[in-house]
């Protein structure tokens, strides 16, 4: 049984009823790192928040199920979900400065998680806070525990967020673009920290990013999202080495590196007309006639790999 299973999740704008996430399914095994890659507007962040029933304002869930260790989160009473949040499943977000409370010290905020989710005494909690801060690579934890968020640099703030997320000893950590706001030299430090923690503790990770370079560094499995639909899934190496979906191929061709210039990417249209068929049809270079009118299903190519494209029927 997978640790987490998202089944046919549909999210819609509650005022217009427009579907933003259209039947997304994926699962995470214990100890797995699942990377969700997608550009802005792909629905990756609202999907992540909805796992814990934290729908952003103006978004409602129209159908779908989320199972954590076989229990359906959406059918639990709210009090049960509360116990899950920050305890068995925790989150870190992109911008630590707006996610942290500016009027509490770092130590107080980490301790708060322990207060809610553990039975430790006050003294034990204080000790545990320092251990946690040390674990996430914060040097001089006594001093940093007394600091306020604005006194720390971006990298330290994100480490403090990770300490808070680890305080409940979660089994699953959802990280939504946790390094996007950081400079490259700090980004790699935070990624390495998350990778080490996940390996050492067998912690499962859902890692969301728009950056394929980051995903290829940290993830084992990948889900490619585009306009609220899963276009391709599989093991990271396989997908990056041999992308099946034209969109995945476009993403790889457009990402640049030390010796990798942007290819003059073939792409149809800058102005997109909405399509009734395949979501990627307007930009696709391989446009098949069937995709214009009909939506392709997610086709299973082999045990670990699926792609939503008529070319693989």
């Amino acid at each position, binding site marked *: 049984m997978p640790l987490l299973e998202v089944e046919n999740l549909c999210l819609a704008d509650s005022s217009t009823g427009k579907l933003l996430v259209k039947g997304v399914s994926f699962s995470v095994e214990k100890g797995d790192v699942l990377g969700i890659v997608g*550009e*802005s507007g792909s629905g990756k962040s609202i999907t992540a928040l909805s796992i814990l029933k934290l729908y952003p304002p103006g978004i409602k869930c129209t159908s779908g199920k989320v199972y954590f260790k076989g229990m359906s989160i959406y059918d639990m009473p709210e009090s049960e979900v509360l116990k899950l949040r920050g305890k068995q499943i925790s989150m870190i977000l992109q911008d630590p400065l707006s996610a942290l409370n500016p009027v509490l010290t770092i130590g107080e905020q980490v301790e708060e998680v322990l207060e809610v989710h553990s039975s430790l005494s006050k003294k034990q909690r204080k000790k545990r806070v320092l251990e946690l801060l040390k674990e996430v*690579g914060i040097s001089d934890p006594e001093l940093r525990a007394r600091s306020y968020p604005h006194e720390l*640099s*971006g*990298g*330290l703030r994100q480490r403090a967020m990770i300490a808070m997320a680890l305080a409940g000893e979660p089994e699953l950590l959802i990280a939504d673009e946790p390094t996007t706001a950081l*400079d*490259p*030299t*700090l*980004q*790699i*430090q935070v*990624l*390495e920290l998350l990778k080490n923690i996940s390996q050492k503790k067998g912690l499962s990770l859902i890692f969301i990013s*728009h*950056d*394929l*370079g*980051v995903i*290829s*560094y940290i993830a084992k499995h990948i889900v490619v999202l585009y306009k609220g639909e899963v276009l391709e899934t599989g093991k990271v190496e396989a997908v*990056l*080495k041999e992308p099946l979906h034209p969109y995945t191929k*476009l*993403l*790889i*061709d*457009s*990402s*640049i*590196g*030390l*010796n*990798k*210039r*942007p*290819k*003059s*990417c073939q*792409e149809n249209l*800058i*102005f997109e007309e909405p399509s009734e068929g395949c979501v990627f049809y307007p930009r696709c270079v391989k446009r098949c006639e069937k995709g214009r009118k009909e939506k392709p299903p997610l086709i299973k190519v082999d045990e670990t790999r699926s792609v939503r494209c008529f070319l693989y029927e």
Partner: protein
Amino acid sequence: MNKLIELKGVYKGFKVRTGILTKKFVWVLKDINLFILKGEVLGILGESGCGKSTLGSVVLGLNTPERGKVEWYGGKKKIQAVFQDPYSSLNPRYTVKKTLLEPYFLCVAKDEKRGIERAKSLLLKVGLKEEVLSFYPHMLSGGQRQRVALARALITEPELVVLDEPTSALDTTVQAQILNLLKSFKEEFKLSYLLITHSVPVVMSLADRIAVMYMGRFVEITHKDEFLSPPHHPYTELLIDSTLEVARIPKRIKELGEPASLISGEIKGCVFAHRCPYAEERCKKLQPELVNVTEKKQIACFKC
């Protein structure tokens, strides 16, 4: 080739609020010497707070340096800029037509008919349709807005364009398109760029020469073809090793320090010594000068 612009010994500082009543003077640019040749792309590589955008504003003439000189060779100064965030750099109350014609009227000619013609041809060049002329910015996507910003910069026929993180707010696929556009415009209009970015891949895709900046100083200036091969300034090495890309496993990073802030005060010795894995005693006392290591490479490090 001819120099287009040159900065000689430029120092720029600001008063920074450090408390409710206290202010402190901080040097943001220290002893900056640079030139840009005609038709050349100079990349400025550095992380947040290193002073790279301040350098851009000095080149644009939006900030006057406290010390040093900015010299423009050749007639009328023709500089334009494209900024990071196309959401805030376009006026939301202006249609694309007004956005493009305003600089044309100011800098080229007060001729509406020819201005519109030029605007139309530029829009096509940046990959937009003529209809966009009547659009407001909110009707466009991020990539489309950045294309409008690019057209606005080009309409005055500049010789130098300051590109301040032109693609870092954009999605991967859009970034590739904009980088390709910038490259083709450089050749077509014989433009020079000052490209400011934190990304090694971006600077490698566009620049001819790369200047690496750390805490207000240049620590390395190198031609692109030698940039990835050693010797490196230790900071350049760190930047290269930290670069993540598809299917490349980065080296283990040797350094674990946090960057210091400019506000924390003057640093004695080399600006990078506090994070440098190779730092020695002398590095903490003296700031090394830029020296030619090869014909195409200048590094400010005692080790090189």
